[in-house]
């Protein structure tokens, strides 16, 4: 399984001018699907993510300019000024339901509170983290010829 296979032409896509090369390098190193086209860089991700100013190594006014220049498809962008972080979130049109017992629900609510998240965000974080680990492990086993 490759990230390219999953995102194909969908996914959360951002485009920004080529003068922000440090951001392009950062996203490529994180394993995003990236490519260049005319005077723009493009990056596609299947999930939400954040970019902090320190990661981009840009001074604050340039980071702000970068934020304004981002064009987002299939999602939205937001800027947390105090955290100096840009958050990118995909549109989430699909609903996934599952059943739990009352004590399980209380546990989940308690755990989400520890992370200062609501229940949905906490579940999303756990599940996507677990899925990424499972698929990365599967890829490594395949590459090593073990599966």
């Amino acid at each position, binding site marked *: 399984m490759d990230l390219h296979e999953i995102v194909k032409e969908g996914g959360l896509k951002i485009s920004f001018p080529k003068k922000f090369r440090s951001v392009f390098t950062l996203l490529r190193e994180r394993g995003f699907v990236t490519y260049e086209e005319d005077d723009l860089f493009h990056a596609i991700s*299947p999930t939400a993510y954040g970019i902090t100013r320190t990661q981009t190594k840009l001074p604050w006014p340039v980071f702000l300019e970068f934020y304004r220049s981002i064009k987002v498809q299939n999602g939205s962008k937001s800027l947390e000024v105090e955290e100096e972080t840009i958050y990118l979130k*995909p549109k*989430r049109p*699909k609903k*996934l339901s*599952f*059943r*739990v017992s009352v004590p399980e629900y209380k546990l989940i609510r308690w755990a989400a509170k520890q992370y200062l998240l609501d229940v949905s965000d906490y579940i999303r974080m756990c599940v996507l983290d677990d899925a990424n680990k499972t698929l990365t492990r599967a890829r490594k086993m395949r590459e090593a010829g073990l599966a």
Partner: protein
Amino acid sequence: MLKGIKKRGRRHIAFIPKRPVRISVRFSEEEIALIKRAAEREGLSMADYVRNAVLSEIFASWEEE
């Protein structure tokens, strides 16, 4: 008192609680594709995979403490 059922496997007995609470979470199509692949890999339904992932994370963080 907790209510549930017991289920006999070939080498184990599973105790499954009643699950009256329904939780719905929104995902993007690509996130769903990612979860579906991982669930298939583990041989689980998507609902079971999501439940296991969340509860395992909670128990793992307890063990770390």
